[in-house]
């Protein structure tokens, strides 16, 4: 399929692909088994300038667009989603800083993120606030020139490993969703500690942790945008990051398809490779069709974002829902093609199936994203825009 990538996009793809093949695939099973944060690979990614892709040029980045980032994430995910989410979460956490940060904040943090010296995390979810982010309890009380943070964030990707956290907290609880603000908190700030490290089903190389704030004092200068903007920051950030998660699903599914085909051509039953049986052939073809359709949708949405479109909640949601559902089906079928061997941890497809599940859940569960899409659809009576 011809996607008309430009020279730089081809370059991003081939660099990310080489890292995936030479540095990620050989260690992914071990990282998964040990639930070990992939620091050595993160260093490779930073040496290869992949953290520069999503940072503007004036802050030592490459000023790449949504499609550029999607290509990098897709390739890394072909190898390991535990690694790719650790990378993608930094891109996600950079969005609020780039979109709403003050000049001094950008100068202070973005070059360090670009060089890979500093990982970042975005902290919204709490035990009582998942899809319903208006129910956030973490508070940031104003006191002189500081905010005092109290509360616990849950399921935070890169928690404990990142240096910089963008935390959505209530600065004015009485106002509900309009009382939330986005505040930068650095690791090692007194009163900021890490709680439980989650033991996950998949993406086990990545770190998912609780952030605990107990009278944690940060300067008011750490506010992103203005007070009360937290909810908007979160929604806009996720709109922009969603194509990246969809790209993760595409890469994962692609990796599973390649594994399934390689195995089917090698595995002999009834005197023939199982790839010669029509039942298997049709499964493989269906996987390939779905992946290509998902890829085309994701790239189209990424290009919509890059074109400067202002509202793409609907498109981004569609890409994420479709691609992650495809990844779940494709990885499940990959295990089926492998038969009993696919169920064993000696082969990579069972990990891929475990990894796929989270993509249907995080960055907006597929059900709540459908809720976000329907108003747009009804408003234009289903007509094409």
């Amino acid at each position: 399929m011809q996607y008309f990538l430009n020279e730089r996009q081809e370059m991003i793809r081939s660099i990310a692909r080489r890292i995936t093949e030479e540095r990620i695939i050989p260690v992914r099973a071990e990282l998964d088994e040990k639930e070990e944060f992939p620091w050595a690979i993160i260093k490779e990614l930073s040496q290869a300038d992949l953290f520069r892709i999503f940072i503007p040029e004036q802050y030592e980045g490459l000023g790449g667009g949504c499609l550029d980032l999607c290509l990098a994430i897709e390739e890394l995910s072909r190898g390991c989603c535990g690694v790719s989410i650790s990378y993608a979460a930094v891109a996600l956490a950079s969005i609020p800083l780039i979109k709403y940060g003050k000049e001094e904040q950008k100068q202070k943090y973005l070059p360090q993120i670009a060089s890979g010296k500093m990982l970042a995390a975005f902290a919204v979810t709490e035990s009582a606030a998942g899809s319903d982010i208006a129910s956030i309890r973490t508070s940031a009380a104003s006191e002189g020139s500081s905010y005092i943070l109290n509360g616990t964030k849950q399921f935070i990707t890169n928690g404990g490993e990142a240096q910089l956290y963008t935390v959505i907290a209530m600065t004015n609880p009485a106002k509900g969703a309009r009382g939330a603000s986005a505040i930068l908190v650095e690791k090692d700030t007194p009163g900021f500690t890490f709680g439980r490290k989650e033991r996950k089903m998949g993406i086990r190389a990545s770190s998912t942790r609780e952030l605990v704030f107990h009278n944690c004092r940060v300067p008011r200068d750490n506010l992103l945008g203005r007070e009360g903007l937290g909810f908007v920051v979160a929604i806009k950030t996720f709109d922009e990051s969603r194509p990246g998660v969809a790209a993760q699903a595409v890469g994962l599914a692609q990796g599973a398809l390649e594994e399934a085909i390689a195995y089917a051509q090698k595995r002999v039953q009834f005197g023939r490779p199982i790839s010669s049986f029509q039942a298997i052939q049709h499964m493989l073809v269906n996987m390939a069709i779905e992946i290509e359709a998902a890829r085309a949708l994701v790239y189209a949405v990424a290009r919509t974002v890059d074109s400067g479109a202002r509202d793409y909640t609907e498109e981004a949601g569609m890409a994420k829902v479709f691609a992650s559902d495809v990844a779940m089906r494709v990885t499940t079928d990959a295990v089926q093609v492998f038969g009993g061997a696919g169920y064993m941890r000696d082969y990579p497809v069972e990990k891929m199936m475990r990894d796929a599940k989270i993509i249907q859940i995080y960055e907006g569960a597929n059900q709540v994203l459908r809720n976000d899409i329907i108003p747009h659809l009804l408003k234009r009576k289903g007509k094409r825009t």
Partner: protein
Amino acid sequence: MKIIVCLKQVPGTTEVRINKLTNTLIREGVESIINPFDTYAIEEGVRLKERYGGKVTVVTMGPPQAEDALREAISVGADEAVLISDRTFAGSDTLATSYVLAKTITKIDEYSLIICGRQTMDGDTGQVGPELAQRLGIPFVAYVSQVEGISGGCIRVQRMVEEGREIVESPLPCVISVVKEINVPRLPSLLGTMRSKTARIPVWKAQDLGIDANKIGVSGSPTHVIRIFYPQRTRKAEVLQGSLQDQVEALVTKLRENKVI
């Protein structure tokens, strides 16, 4: 610190075919890569630059397409590159090659360290490094597995020897050849690849270097390959028979006869 890394573009396979008339390698239609040992030399040069400042210049002698190898070196951190290419260089042996390299490096003039891979994958001689040092009249340290440090105009390295490691100090400038144990070469970076696409690589010819035509090419090379052949693969297998006791005794006798035990 000015570092020069010498590299060679080689066929990306170990199954090379030989031209039966000239007894040289057939390079046409074979994908070319940077000699794997040289990738460790490039990486070490870039690491030393990152540690001590300065720049890394990569140099190769070869046909025009060897420029690709130099661009690849830039994509992994080299700053500058020089391609030494002239039809008259074709067929040069290691002595002639080291002559051309020495002339090139003398022209570059400023350098404190020259790094080579331990040997090439195609020729396998490991001669160019020491010959180059001899021609430049500077020290040579082979099989370096670690650069401990550089200070006071001296480099301190560990080199691999038959039964362990030797620590050697040498004044600069000098030539070192490195083994694969020295580092893990990095993969190309985005900025490096972008730079490698646009970098200007000068091509130096024989006349640019004041080369004596009698010392290069086939005629200037004292090495003459008379014949190339694959070693005969012979397998002499013997199956021992009889009771276990007999077999063990027979085996021990055989091992003694062959002085294995």
